C-alpha cells in the first residue's frame, strides 16, 4: 500500500532543511547571486551535503551514504523548491547518483554521497525518461563532441557522459570546456559541455543508467514543483490578506478567493501525486505509472501557481526585486525538465493501455 503521508522523521528532516535554508537562501541573497559569477550557493550546498549528509540519502550506508530513500529526498526537494535554492541537489544527489547506482561505480558513488564531489549527468535537462539523448563520439579511446542544456554543469566536478558506443563515461569537469548558457531558470543554470578528445573512464552501460536517473529525476522533480507551488500559494494568500484596495483587503473579493481556492485544490492534489511518486520510487512498485502521473500533473500546477502569484501581486509581481520571478522561471523550466507533461501523458498511454488512434 502506498504511504502518502509524511512520517515524523520526515517532518523533522523538513524542519531542519527549512531552518538551514532560512539562514542561507533568503530571497534578496538568491536574487543578487543570480547575476554574479557564482550563481550557485556553494556554502548552502556544503551545509546541506557535508553538514547534514543529505547528498548521500539515496546511497546505501555500505557505500558511504545514509541508506535513506526517495521519500526523504522528496521532502528535501520540497524545501529546496520552496526556497528556489541554487544548489545542485536534484542534479547531483539524485540524477547523477541514480546513474551511478545503476552502473555500480562504488568509488564515485561514495564521493558524490559525501557531497564533496558534485556530479552532473551530461544529458540535456529537457530529456524525458523514455526519450533518446545526445551522445558524444568515442574516437581512439577519447571523447569528442558537444552537449547542450546540462543543468548545474557549471559547478560540477565530474560529468557522466553518454558516448556513441553505448557507454557512460566519467569525465573530470576540468578536462572539458564548459560554457554557461543564459538560462531561463536563474537558479538552475545550464551550460554547454565541449569535449575535444578527452579521455573518460567507462562506468557502465548508458541505457539503464540514464533511464533510471531520468525517471528518478522526473518523479522527484514533482516534489520540488510542490515546494514551488506551495510557496506561491502561501505567499499570495499572505499578501492578499494585507494588501488593501477599495478600502478592503483584496483577498476578500470573491473572484480572487475562488481562484486561490482552486489553486489550493491543485496544490493538495499535487502533494498526493508527488508523495505517490516518491513512495513508488522508494518501493520500486508501480514506478513508471506513478512517475508519469506525477509529472503529467505537477508541471501545469507549479506554472499555474507561479503565474497566479505574479498576477495577484499586481505590479509588484513584475519587479526584479520581488522573488516571484525566480519561482515563475523555475516552474516554467521545470515544466520542460525531464520531459513535458505532454511527453509523460504520451508515455502513460502505453503504460495504462489507452492507445493512440
Amino acid at each position, binding site marked *: *500500500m*502506498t*504511504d*502518502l*503521508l509524511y512520517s515524523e522523521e520526515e517532518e523533522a528532516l523538513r524542519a531542519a532543511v527549512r531552518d538551514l535554508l532560512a539562514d542561507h537562501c533568503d530571497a534578496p541573497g538568491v536574487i543578487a547571486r543570480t547575476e554574479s559569477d557564482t550563481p550557485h550557493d556553494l556554502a548552502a550546498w556544503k551545509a546541506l551535503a557535508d553538514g547534514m549528509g543529505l547528498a548521500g540519502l539515496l546511497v546505501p550506508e555500505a557505500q558511504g551514504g545514509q541508506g535513506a530513500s526517495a521519500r526523504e529526498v522528496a521532502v528535501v526537494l520540497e524545501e529546496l523548491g520552496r526556497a528556489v535554492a541554487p544548489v545542485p541537489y536534484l542534479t547531483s544527489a539524485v540524477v547523477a547518483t541514480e546513474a551511478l547506482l545503476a552502473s555500480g561505480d562504488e568509488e564515485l558513488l561514495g564521493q558524490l554521497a559525501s557531497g564533496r564531489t558534485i556530479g552532473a549527468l551530461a544529458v540535456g535537462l529537457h530529456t524525458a525518461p523514455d526519450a533518446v539523448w545526445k551522445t558524444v563520439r568515442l574516437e581512439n579511446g577519447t571523447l569528442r563532441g558537444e552537449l547542450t542544456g546540462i543543468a548545474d554543469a557549471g559547478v560540477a566536478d565530474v560529468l557522466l557522459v553518454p558516448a556513441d558506443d553505448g557507454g557512460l563515461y566519467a569525465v573530470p569537469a576540468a578536462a572539458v570546456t564548459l560554457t554557461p548558457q543564459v538560462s531561463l531558470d536563474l537558479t538552475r543554470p545550464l551550460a554547454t559541455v565541449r569535449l575535444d578528445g578527452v579521455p573518460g573512464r567507462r562506468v557502465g552501460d548508458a541505457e539503464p543508467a540514464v533511464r533510471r536517473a531520468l525517471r528518478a529525476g522526473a518523479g522527484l522533480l514533482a516534489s520540488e514543483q510542490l515546494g514551488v507551488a506551495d510557496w506561491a500559494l502561501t505567499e499570495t*494568500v499572505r499578501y*492578499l*490578506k494585507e494588501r488593501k484596495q477599495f478600502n*478592503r*483587503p483584496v*483577498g*476578500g473579493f*470573491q473572484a480572487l*478567493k*475562488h481562484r*486561490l*481556492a*482552486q489553486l*489550493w*485544490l491543485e496544490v*493538495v*492534489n*499535487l*502533494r*498526493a*501525486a508527488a*508523495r*505517490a511518486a516518491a513512495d513508488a520510487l522508494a518501493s520500486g512498485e508501480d514506478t513508471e505509472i506513478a512517475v508519469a*502521473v506525477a509529472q*503529467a*500533473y505537477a508541471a501545469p500546477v507549479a506554472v499555474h501557481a507561479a503565474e497566479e502569484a505574479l498576477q495577484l501581486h499586481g505590479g509588484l509581481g513584475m519587479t526584479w526585486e520581488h522573488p516571484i520571478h525566480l519561482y515563475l522561471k523555475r516552474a516554467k523550466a521545470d515544466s520542460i525538465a525531464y520531459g513535458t507533461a505532454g511527453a509523460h*501523458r*504520451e508515455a*502513460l*498511454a502505453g503504460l*495504462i*493501455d*489507452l*492507445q*493512440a*488512434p
Partner: protein
Amino acid sequence: MTDAEELRRRTRELLAEHPPADTDRLDFLGARFDAGLAWVHYPQGLGGLGAPRSLQAVVDAELEAAGAPDNDPRRIGIGLGMAAPTILKYGTDEQKQRFLRPLWTGEEVWCQLFSEPGAGSDLAALGTRAVREGEDWVVNGQKVWTSSAHVARWAILIARTAPDVPKHAGITYFVCDMTDPGVEVRPLRQITGEAEFNEVFLTDVRIPDSRRLGAVGDGWRVAQTTLMNERVSIGGMALPREGGMIGPIAKTWRERPELRTHELHQRLLKLWVEAEVSRLTAERLRQQLVAGQPGYEGSGMKLAFARLNQEISGLEVELRGEEGLVYDDWTMRRPELVDFTGRDAGYRYLRSKGNSIEGGTSEVLLNIVAERVLGLPAEPRTDKDVAWKDLAR
C-alpha cells in the same frame, strides 16, 4: 478493552452465536447492533463500544470474510451519515434509544427536510414555519430536493420558530414523522427523466415537542453537525485505480478503437491523470483520518469530484459520436439508489450536472475553502442583524 484484538474476539462471538447462514438478515443486524459492533465509535448501548473509529475496519473485515449481511449503507446513507450523528450529539436518551437501532439496521429509512425553493445556498433563510400549540408544533411549508422521501419513515427537519429575530437565531430542529397525514410527497422529475428527488409539502403537520432535537431556536447549530457529516462521509475504503467515472470511458476507449481520434486521446489522457491524482488525494485523506491527523483535503474533494465527473462523462458522450446522439431511456422512474457511474454515457453526463449543486454548490464550497482553509476575509454580510421577516425575498 477495545483494541483490535478484543474487537476481533467480540466479532467472532457474534458470528458464533448468530451464524449468518442460518440467521434472518434483520435479526443478525440487530444482534450486531446490540453487541456494539454496528459503529464501534458510538457509545455502549447505542450500537458501539466507545472504541476509536478507525477500528471499525477490523470488525467489517471479519464480518465480510464470514459472509455476514451488511446494512446496505448506500440505501440508508442519509440516516447513517446525517441523522445519526445529529441524534447522537443532540438527542435525549429516549430519542437515541428509539431511533438509532432501526436507523442503523435499515428498518427505518430517513430523509432530510432542509432545502426549500427559496432557501438553497442560503439555507438559513428557510421559511417553513413551526408554531407551538400545547405539547405539539404545527408545521407548514415546502421542502425540496428530498431524496428517499417516498420511502422514508422519518425525516430530520429544520423549521422557523421565531421570525422576529435574525435568520440563524430563529430555527429549530425536529424529527418529523413522514406518515403524518399532513406530509405530502410528490416526485420531482429531473433532467435525466427520472425522479430521484421529491418535493415535500407540509400542511398542519403535528410534531410533538418530544421530537425536537436541541433547544428551541438552536436549530442552526444542530444542523451544522448534520451538514459537517454530509461532507465527511467519504468511506473507509481505498478506491481502486479507474474506480470512478473514468472507468467506463477507459473501457469504451479500449474496446472501441474505431471511435478514437487524436484530439479525444489528448483530452482523455489529461482527464485520466486528473482522476488518478484525485483518487490519490482521497486515499491520502483516508490515510490521514486513519492516522488521526485531521486534514483539510476533504473540503476540496467534492469540488474535484463534481468537475471530473462532468468533464469525463461529457467527453464520453462526444467519444461515442453517432451513439452519443441517442439516450437510453427517458421513462420517469423513482429509483431507490443513485449510481453516478451507472447506465449510459448520456445519463452519466446529465446526472453529473447535479454533482456541483447537491450537498453544497461548488461556488459555496470555494468560499468555504477560501475562508476556513486559507483564512481569507468573509463575504460582506447585510443579513446578519436583520430579523428574518424583514429580509429581501
